[in-house]
């Protein structure tokens, strides 16, 4: 039926598909499936946040929203009947504490990590070993003595209690140090010969060179502190000091009637981290390639 030549071409084409395309298509399909799995609750959250009340009570429950409305956000942000503290206060608390932590902790880590990598004062190896060791346990281990310090300072239930204990992050320090290791000394020497002070060298030469690293830390530090639940759980006693995750956990049950408000709150909590990451994704990838630990 088919001419030999055509048949030949057809098989060639088929073989090509088999060799390159079929496995690739399968791979893409697999990955899209995985993406669907990771995105499933996120998309549900977005949809539910915009659902009007009657769609929340639909039976059987529907995944997607049909008539999107802003009412859930409106209720959450403006109507505060029943709750003493307006939701915007939680947003402010989270935003304020996270921003201060990110700024200070990144500056401190940059100063220290850069000094350890490039100035290498006596005892550097020991200091780095200790910091590496600090990567190997979670902050829960030190929660009790840290609580005692915070209690001693008399700053329980203030913003300081949420900020100060989190400034010395071993993770941040480690990443900066690893990244700073590969900065050529020549840059710094050149600046020194030009008569720049060490602080100026740090600020004008090192910081621009470290930019991918500290941008990455801004992302990670923001994500971790924004989502942190344990610290505010310990250090805040009043409703007005709660941060978003803590407030979310006590927002008022998980009944279906609350699904819209809960999803709206969850969306507001999730959005900033995703936006920040998307904006700075390129720099993050650049930095993470230096993150390895040489055993």
């Amino acid at each position, binding site marked *: 039926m088919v001419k030999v030549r055509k048949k030949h071409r057809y098989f060639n084409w088929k073989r090509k598909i088999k060799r390159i395309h079929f496995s690739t298509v399968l791979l893409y399909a697999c990955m899209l499936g995985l993406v669907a799995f990771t995105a499933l609750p*996120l998309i549900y959250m977005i949809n539910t946040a915009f659902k009007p009340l009657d769609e929340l009570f639909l039976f059987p429950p529907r995944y997607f929203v049909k008539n999107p409305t802003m009412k859930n956000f409106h209720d959450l942000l403006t109507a505060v009947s029943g709750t003493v503290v307006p939701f915007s206060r939680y947003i402010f608390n989270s935003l304020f504490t996270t921003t201060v932590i990110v700024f200070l902790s990144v500056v401190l880590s940059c100063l220290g990590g850069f000094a350890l990598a490039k100035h290498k*004062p006596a005892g550097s190896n020991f200091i780095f070993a200790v910091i590496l060791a600090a990567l190997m*346990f979670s902050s829960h281990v030190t929660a009790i003595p840290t609580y005692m310090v915070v209690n001693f300072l008399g700053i329980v239930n203030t913003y300081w209690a949420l900020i100060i204990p989190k400034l010395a992050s071993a993770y941040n320090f480690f990443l900066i140090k690893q990244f700073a290791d590969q900065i050529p000394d020549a840059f710094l020497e050149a600046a020194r010969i030009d008569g720049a002070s060490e602080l100026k060298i740090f600020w004008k030469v090192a910081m621009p060179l470290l930019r991918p690293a500290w941008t990455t830390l801004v992302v990670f530090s923001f994500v971790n502190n924004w989502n942190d639940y344990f610290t505010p759980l310990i250090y805040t006693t009043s409703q007005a000091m709660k941060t978003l995750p803590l407030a979310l956990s006590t927002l008022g049950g*998980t009944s279906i009637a609350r699904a819209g408000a809960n999803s709206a709150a969850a969306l507001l*909590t999730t959005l900033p981290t995703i936006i920040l990451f998307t904006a700075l994704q390129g720099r993050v990838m650049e930095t993470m390639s230096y993150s*390895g630990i040489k055993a």
Partner: protein
Amino acid sequence: MADMTEIKTANKSLLKPDRKKVMKSWWKKNGIGYLFLLPYMLLFLIFIVIPVAVAFFLSLTNYNMIQKPDFIGLTNFKILFMDDDIFLIALKNTLIFSCIAGPVGYIMSFLAAWVINNLKGRKFFALAFYAPSLTSGIAMSVVWLYFFSPDRFGLINNFLINTLGVTTEPVLWTQDPKYILRVVIFISIWMSMGNGFLVFLAGLQNISKELYEAAAIDGIRNRFQQLWYITLPLMQPQLLFGAINSIVGSFGAYDIAVAIAGMPSPEYSAHTIVAHLFDHAFIRFSMGYASCIAVILFVMTYTLSKVCMRVFRSRE
């Protein structure tokens, strides 16, 4: 003449090292470095190093924050392992959790990074895969609860009953102790898959293509040989970093478990070590006993991380 005197003074200082001068040159060499390190190290000492030591000390005492700590030796550890059944449940849960969620998340994030690295649209896939790790465990638990809701309104129950028709009664995902830990593990894996992912993806991008080409000439035939003989050995530092993060993260499991199952969870079925620590430290204020739990948590994650370092070193 000026040269001569200079040499003379230089000689003198060589013969009799002036203490002040030694200090001065030492300071010149190290001072700036220390000054730069000072602010970080000060906080690091106060909030990380000293607390670890204090936790070790407190674990040997009976301390309630009001009276002075009362030294009682290893009694806390004895009670913890001999009499505290709830701790043993917490320990068991944490171990089950870590043994499943840790490795599964780790392997999946590596495989995903490995596959995505060769795909078009890498940036999109990376974002999609990493997005859950950017979210708050508490916020997403609230959302997941609508999936695992124990009534007919729950999306998963609805799917099982109406779409698949495998059961007629809704499964009590978040109330039946049989299922709670599984649900928590499932959600945790969803959230933590991305954690090592970025590190791995970055590591993969660092390996130059020429290496693979050279290896192909040397007789490496398929992708899996490539993976085993080239990629994995070269990614060893990233793999180690990911492993340590994964260990620390999975042993510190707490918020998702609390958000899903409450505190205390039904029959302590989702009670973790950190939950136990929190309960004793910040609800009952028995700081000595809670420090003892903290020390055990420390020893477990630290030892495991060290073991990991050994394993990775021996593979080199």
